[in-house]
């Protein structure tokens, strides 16, 4: 069972780090948690270009000059939880929709036509509306159209993940949102998501069920981002130790202040996000790092080769949004609005190879 140790001593030491400590930390081998804390420290911000350089070297060595491309496919925005920060919260009066299996296939084929081979099925957390039976049906309907189909849905039991794996799902993303229990309890006001422990054990269940890849992450803007970075590193190291056959990714959804919407508890600016990415890359050379369309095109283009390995493109975050251009019932607003063609062109122009297909459904039969 993963439990987060007390990080306060580590954080204190990191706050006192100087530039020499940062340079030493950069030279340390992977997996060094003290080094991670130092790389996340304020002192490290002054050496951001050096961190970027080191992160870039490691990324090139492990991943080559490639970037994987995927698209999210929102199946349903019904949700039983009341999360203070999310557009899908149960108490929000938005247009709710759940795609039928046929509609899901229709949306998916649109994505396929546009060139996507990797898609991420997303739902709010409402098992009665979009439970395992439904997800299994959708998975089976889509499996032969895509190289890889992954899910970001409510936390499931291990046997349920196993069912979905057999139905063709290759990867599971489930974000703790925040590893700070106090903050967690403050923003999760109702619904099963209030159970911090059940959620934090979910990546392990997915890995134990045989999923090829498991994605973790925190919502930046809730608790202090340096602590979240440390917690992510520890969770990742624990998962690797206990599930050595599994691949892992980390995502970085970042709350942006928006009028009338949830006010983030802390501001995490692009510089912080980049430092977090560089630090995690140095800490774990093999973890996939995902940058979604929440971020601006300028930032995403600039970060190519410096750590991130997977980009979404042309994303729409409302169910049925690919066929109907109105974006009612969105989960978050898009920073990078470019199409897959534009994103791939930008990636290629910077000397990287956009990879739309990195697996094959045949491997999983």
């Amino acid at each position, binding site marked *: 069972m993963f439990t987060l140790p007390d990080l306060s001593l580590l954080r204190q030491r990191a706050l006192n780090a100087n530039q020499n400590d940062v*340079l*030493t930390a*950069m*030279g*340390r*081998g*992977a*997996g*060094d948690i003290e080094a991670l804390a130092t790389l996340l420290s304020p002192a490290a911000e002054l050496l*951001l*270009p*050096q961190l*970027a*350089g*080191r992160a*870039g*070297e*490691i990324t090139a*060595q492990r991943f080559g000059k490639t970037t994987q491309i995927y698209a999210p496919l929102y199946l349903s925005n019904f949700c039983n939880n009341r999360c203070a920060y999310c557009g899908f919260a149960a108490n929000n009066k938005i247009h709710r929709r759940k795609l039928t299996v046929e509609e899901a296939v229709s949306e998916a084929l649109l994505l396929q036509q546009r060139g996507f081979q990797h898609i991420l099925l997303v739902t709010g957390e409402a098992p009665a509306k979009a439970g395992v039976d439904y997800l299994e049906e959708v998975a089976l309907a889509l499996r032969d159209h895509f190289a890889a189909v992954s899910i970001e849905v409510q936390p499931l039991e291990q046997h349920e993940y196993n069912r979905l794996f057999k139905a063709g799902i290759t990867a599971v993303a489930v974000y703790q949102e925040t590893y700070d229990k106090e903050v967690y309890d403050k923003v999760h006001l109702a619904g099963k998501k209030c159970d911090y422990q059940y959620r934090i054990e979910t990546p392990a269940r997915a890995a134990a069920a045989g999923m090829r890849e498991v994605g973790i992450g925190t919502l930046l803007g809730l608790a202090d981002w340096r602590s979240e970075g440390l917690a992510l590193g520890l969770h990742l190291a624990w998962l690797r*130790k*206990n599930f*050595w056959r599994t691949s892992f990714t980390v995502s970085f959804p970042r709350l942006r202040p928006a009028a009338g919407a949830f006010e983030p508890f802390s501001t995490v*600016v*692009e*510089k912080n996000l*980049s430092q977090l990415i560089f630090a995690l890359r140095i800490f774990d*050379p093999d973890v996939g790092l995902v940058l979604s369309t929440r971020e*601006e095109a*300028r*930032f995403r*283009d*600039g*970060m190519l*080769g*410096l750590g991130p390995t997977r980009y979404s493109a042309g994303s729409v975050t409302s169910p049925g949004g690919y066929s109907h251009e109105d974006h009612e019932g969105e989960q978050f607003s898009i920073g990078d609005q470019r199409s897959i063609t534009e994103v791939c062109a930008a990636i290629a122009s910077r000397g990287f190879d956009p990879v739309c297909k990195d697996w094959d459904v045949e491997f999983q039969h």
Partner: protein
Amino acid sequence: MLTIASTTFKSRLFVGTGKFSSAAEMKQAIEASESQMVTVALRRVDLENPEDDIMTALDRDKICFLPNTSGARDAEEAIRLAHLARAAGNTPWLKLEVTPDPRTLLPDPVDTLKATEQLVKEGFIVLPYMNVDPVLALRLQDVGAAAVMPLGSPIGTNMGISNKLQLEIIIEQARVPVVVDAGLGAPSHATEAMEMGADAVLVNTAIAVAGDPIRMAKAFRDAVHAGREAFEAGLGRQSTSASASSPETNISTPNLDFISN
């Protein structure tokens, strides 16, 4: 303190009992080493010398016996030897050695895994001797090995740690204790293994054939202790992914002007 299969050991030096010039010297060397676990082998009784019995030289109240399956060339032979060992010593502890090539005495990965899985099911505390193969180490742990024993270098070569990189990986990924065994020819080799984070080492030849085995046993005792102290005191870790550039110079510094805030 080192714990293997719920048994704690104050000493992280295990010693083999072979190749000593006499039982008396063996006994004194083991005492000098302060080791709490020794390996023993199984052989046909020498009917010409019926009274020659290693068991009498060692006090089993103070020393844990770790029977090995040396001589086994496949899983079946190893399992048979394991049963004999359990009967002979009334102990579930077992150092599993499957060495089909009598020249190199390198461990067979396939039959080692097979035998480990079977013997764990039968209730043995299995410590498999293995090559420095990180994936094999994980597979052995998955089937219940109580510890893993990657070699330092092939038996008899005395080369110390011959595959540092992969041994580091084994140690990093291990969920059970890692005991480096075989080929540790000098105390400095043992120190090196312990500084890398190994949980224990097993030494036989280097002590048994030394000019003064008792003195050498003490040297190894001190070497293992020093290495462990250094590790726990927080040695600077060497980078397994070190690239040519050192931190102070030669780092490319990308242009980060694209970051808006």
